[in-house]
């Protein structure tokens, strides 16, 4: 039987999570680092928003603001053989795995110094060397890729797993279901995390998905385990993720997790309607009671680990780092016209090792 554990209230949950070894064994520095991580992500995104408004960044800009505990908590428990992949709302995951603000900001500016050399933009950050496989723009398109990462780990007999993040709207793409069935059928250690922020663009969860209890319960149709949690507290996210990562690796099994969260901003910056499909009060309520940064700051203050001064310092550093990144991006060069046709074929980029012949590219 599949585990059914829907935890809608968070009282008691946080205390329990705090006591779990994964959290109780944290040093003070490590705890502060978690707070710092979330603050860095938020300040980075706020800075990118300003750049967007200044016309320095084009295309889409999907902000993660409000959701920071999910990526921060879940990525913080991964080991060196664990890999991950997400959708287009991908800045947090990038910074958290160790990508620099410079290369991320420059990417959004479309500069040659960007992490994808100006070719991917906001939705397409990658750092394979840090086990981060993007950054994907097609809703749920990343889900079979995440499955494939975990499949390869299992095939290569590496003691790792893959986390694949997706949105609450993404669960209704067929390819996700195909991936769930394959994962369950073949015992693949992939952890699908639905970052449920309540909306897919302007459509509330209730208007896009029919389900019973939780979206994650769809896992039962595949005899797969699942859990759903309120995810605004980084301890809770860590505890849940850690437990299921160990489960996935020890048993070589997939799992489907729902992390209930919230985004403050519009779907993307172009979404001027973000208060049309929900009330100002709804946003405020979350901000006031469940803001991941405030909540964790309070925890650390209560634990006596941090004081206002320390937070101020973190805030200041994060802002300065983000401003410096914007400056770096601004001062970087755009890619060359020649580079348009680079990074298309591995072979064309490695002419010495090219084995094929004939034309790879076509002119008019």
């Amino acid at each position, binding site marked *: 039987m599949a585990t059914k554990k829907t935890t809608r209230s968070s009282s008691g949950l946080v205390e329990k999570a705090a006591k779990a070894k994964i959290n109780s064994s944290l040093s003070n520095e490590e705890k502060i680092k978690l707070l710092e991580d979330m603050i860095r992500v938020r300040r980075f995104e706020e800075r990118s928003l300003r750049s967007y408004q200044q016309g320095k960044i084009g295309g889409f800009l999907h902000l993660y603001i409000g959701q920071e505990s999910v990526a921060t908590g879940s990525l913080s428990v991964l080991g060196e053989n664990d890999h991950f992949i997400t959708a287009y709302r991908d800045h947090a995951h990038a910074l958290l795995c160790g990508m620099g603000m410079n290369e991320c900001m420059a990417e959004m500016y479309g500069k040659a110094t960007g992490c994808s050399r100006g070719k991917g933009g906001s939705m397409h950050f990658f750092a394979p060397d840090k086990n981060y496989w993007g950054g994907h723009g097609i809703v749920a398109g990343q889900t079979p890729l995440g499955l494939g990462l975990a499949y390869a780990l299992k095939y290569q007999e590496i003691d790792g797993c893959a986390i694949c993040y997706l949105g609450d709207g993404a669960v209704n793409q067929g390819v996700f279901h195909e991936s769930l069935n394959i994962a369950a059928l073949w015992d693949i250690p992939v952890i699908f995390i639905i970052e449920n922020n309540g909306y897919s663009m302007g459509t509330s969860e209730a208007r896009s998905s029919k389900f019973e209890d939780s979206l994650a319960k769809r896992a039962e149709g595949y005899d797969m385990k699942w859990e759903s949690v309120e995810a605004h507290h980084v301890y809770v996210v860590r505890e849940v993720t850690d437990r299921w990562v160990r489960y996935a690796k020890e048993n070589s099994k997939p799992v489907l997790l729902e992390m209930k969260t919230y985004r403050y901003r519009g779907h993307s910056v172009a979404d001027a309607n973000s208060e049309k499909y929900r009330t100002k009060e709804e946003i405020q309520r979350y901000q006031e009671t469940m803001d991941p940064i405030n909540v964790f700051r309070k925890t650390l203050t209560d634990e006596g680990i941090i004081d206002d001064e320390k937070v101020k310092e973190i805030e200041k550093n994060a802002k300065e780092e983000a401003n410096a990144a914007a400056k770096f991006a601004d001062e970087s060069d755009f890619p060359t016209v020649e580079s348009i*046709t680079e990074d298309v074929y591995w072979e064309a980029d490695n002419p010495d090792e090219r084995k094929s012949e004939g034309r790879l590219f076509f002119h008019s």
Partner: protein
Amino acid sequence: MPEITYREAIKQALSEELERDEQVVVMGEEVAQYNGAYKVTEGLFDKFGGKRIIDTPISEAGFIGMGIGASMLGMRPVMELMFWSFSYVAFDQIVNNAAMVRYMSGGLINVPIVIRGPANGGTNVGATHSHTPENFIAYTPGLKVVCPSNAYDAKGLLKSAIRDNDPVYVMENTLLYGQKWEVPEEEYLIPLGKADVKREGSDLTIVSHGRSVITSLEAAENLAKDGIDVEVVDLRSIRPLDIDTVLESVRKTNRVLLVDENKPFCATSSQISHMIQLEAFDYLDAPIQRVTSIDAPAIYSDPLEKEQLPNVARVEKAVRSILDQVSA
């Protein structure tokens, strides 16, 4: 005549057809309560209500397949793809079911569905969101596809598309949504399959469709200052195709440039090129040349994407090079 935006023209077409025919519904992601990701359907939900204007889950294969099924029973669903790029998750429905059910039933069924949405680059949204699949669609017998280059055409073609008894796919352009053109207040239709000579000229024929027509016209104006007189043929509809208007122009100018936002290989313009050389071989003074998107996935970086797409400078240069070649 009042000037209205391309967006407004499409909305008027939808609104008029919704009023005219009860079997018309508008369906897609965010088209109703959110008023459309690009606001093309703004106000329609308020006006026609939730039975006619329907928000869907992010399930393109599911809802487009549903529309095809409904159209077999006589409905005329107008499906919005937020981007034509998302057609790839519904490709089987779009190609196998919409295009082939009539054939495989020996003509017992027809599928009066319309699928519309933007298909273009130029907005820095990257490779996965910048596909222009009119060549894939036009390849497929059973389907029709139009690419309006301006508000007037968009309205007239979309209305014809909705009344058409075959599947018609309409490829719009986000960069045009906010631009204005004269559009008459009284009702009108533009038949599918009728090209439009957007500018007359005698030195060279540009054949184009979609926003590339606008680019071509701008280049033609610049060239006119140097005494180069370019004719610009707007295909408007790729399938059915008004090749006769193209051939007539070629027979007059004897030189051809195809301007096409597709990538080069097996582009719409590859087909036009083949047909011109086949049917007007003796009229050609120079090889048929093309300006297409540079052959790589769509780059994100703004100034580079502008280079990658057909642009005025590249069109001008190509025209000059053809004329040089001929005179040389």
